[in-house]
């Protein structure tokens, strides 16, 4: 049996990061808390296999990501959800890229909730790559391990995710009258 006190000392300090990742993946807060809780229980079960001194945050975020994918698989919808996402999110067009000259100001005019909402419109793989890189500031190598893909895949997903996020926020800005029409 793993040492509970040692686990608490090493793992619990990352609760905020674990919860944030859960928020990025789940549709509501209640589910995010359940997922974070399930992640810590699973981590405790496996704590003996955790290599002391290695990156505990990345280890926990990997468990959370796997747990989330398992939940979708268990409900037999993962292929379906991901297929819908891939199908319905259009590829951003590089040549249609718009420069927002007052970018910083515009970004500040969104609420935190709107920014998170926009992130959640991305397909989950892009969403998670961008979240782990920008918010949790993990290395591309760590993100590749968490998502079980090559580093090159993380690079392309992050870059594509950022372009779509920008496009989504621009459409919000138009809807809300922060900017006018086509730019």
């Amino acid at each position, binding site marked *: 049996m793993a040492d509970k006190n040692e686990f608490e000392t090493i793992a619990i300090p990352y*609760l*905020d990061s674990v919860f944030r990742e859960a928020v990025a993946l789940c549709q509501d807060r209640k589910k995010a808390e359940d997922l974070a809780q399930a992640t810590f229980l699973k981590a405790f079960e496996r704590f003996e296999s955790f290599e002391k001194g290695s990156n505990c945050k990345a280890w926990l975020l990997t468990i959370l990501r796997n747990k989330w994918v398992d939940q979708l698989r268990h*409900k037999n919808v993962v292929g379906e959800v991901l297929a819908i996402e891939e199908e319905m999110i259009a590829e951003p067009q590089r040549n249609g890229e718009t420069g927002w000259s007052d970018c910083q100001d515009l970004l500040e005019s969104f609420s935190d909730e709107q920014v998170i909402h926009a992130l959640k419109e991305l397909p989950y793989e892009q969403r998670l790559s961008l979240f782990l890189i*920008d918010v949790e500031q993990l290395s591309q190598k760590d993100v590749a391990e968490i998502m079980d893909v090559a580093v090159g895949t993380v690079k*392309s997903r992050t*870059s594509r995710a950022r372009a779509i996020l920008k496009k989504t926020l621009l459409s919000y800005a138009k809807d809300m009258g922060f900017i006018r029409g086509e730019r």
Partner: protein
Amino acid sequence: MSHLTDEQLEEVIRGGPLKAGLEHLEHCAECKGRLAEKEALAGRLRSAFATIKPGEGLTERIRQQLNVGPRPLEHAHTIGFFNIRSHRREWSAIAAAAAVLIIGIPLIFYLGKPSSAAAAQAALVKIHENNLSVKHEFYSENDPEKLAEYFKGKLGFSPSMPRPGRGLALRGCCVAHFRGEIVGSYVVDTPEGVMSIVVVTDQPESLGMGGKFERGDWIFWKSYFAKCEMVTVRLGDYSYCAVGEISHKYLTELLVRLLPESQP
């Protein structure tokens, strides 16, 4: 001189080894601008999440569970017949939080929308929230035939409903007032969360649904209000509005299941 690619700029943001890129940036205003924009987006995303914290009780709940070992956590989201009694406290809390959101957020979020459209969307969200609240009259039933009978008695027709299975389960239904009319709505448990389908006679445009898109031969309208996404499709004489804290992609997928195989 070719400009830096998006992926090279990502490398620069990460402080990666890209000496040639840094030299290019010194002389190229365009790439410098693109880099600044990407950095600003990254920074804004980080600051948006900085306010996200778990509820105060979560650490304690985790600690307690480490003492007693695992128990099933997923029961709250089991697909199937919904036992409202055992979730009374959870749903009260959610309903209370939803009430705060309905009052607080729309004002800030939707200043740009015409007020009648905003009011229609607020009313749709309210119907959805009421469906989840124990305080409101709700016909709890997961048999589509019984729900159809209920609607027939109350509304004079029975709306299209998705077939249960593959993670979908009907939870029940109710009738509500919407723009002075009696309308029907029913609740579906899905793997992505709980959603209501509200069936109204109003045209999607008059509900302020902005984003129009096509899927197959059908046209859908999407919008969002407070924390809820909405997708609407016109079927026969009615607009079916799917409402929930669920991505519009998934709401669309659910609505597609209501549609007949034939063309609109």
